[in-house]
């Protein structure tokens, strides 16, 4: 099963109602948010409607929201250098 990894890289502000509706239906709310969707013709059609705003790549598995959150956290704590 493969997935589309879709990231909103350009804001939908000021774009048509239709494009903003497509972004909402993909589950994209703010810039740099990433969502995963199964590879299917309807998702592909949605991506084509907002192709100027999103970055897309194909992935073997989908990350959960928690995994994405964890990956995006900066390293915490500090290191004492000798």
């Amino acid at each position: 099963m493969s997935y589309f990894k879709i990231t909103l890289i350009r804001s939908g502000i000021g774009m048509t109602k239709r494009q903003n509706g497509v972004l909402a239906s993909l589950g994209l709310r703010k810039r740099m948010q990433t969502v995963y969707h199964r590879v299917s013709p309807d998702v592909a059609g949605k991506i084509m409607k907002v192709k100027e705003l999103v970055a897309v790549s194909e992935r073997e598995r989908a990350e959960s929201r928690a995994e994405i959150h964890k990956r995006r956290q900066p390293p915490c704590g500090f290191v004492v250098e000798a």
Partner: protein
Amino acid sequence: MFGAFRPSQPLLGGLLWKIPWRMSAPQKYRQRKRLQRIDRLVNCVDNALKKQGMTVAAIEEWKASMPTEAEMEPRDKYTIFARNERGYRKGGHKVPKWTRVSQRVNPPGF
């Protein structure tokens, strides 16, 4: 005089066009990069669907009607058809939200 009331060209009442009539070299460079990015995205989506043995009309239409960045002429990359301009062309950077819209082909006859 400094600040908001300094004498500047627009304040002195002269006609000053703030948007240059043509794109600068870096603007053109970024425009090419945007076009290439969309070409890559369409390819990526198309390949993913093909692996599953599926197609979608939106992509087939795009591939049939739209030239890729490499196939486009400079004229079409950086300028667009404009009904009311002399020569029927104007800079692509005059289009509202031009960095977020696709504009690749001309109307028939232009």
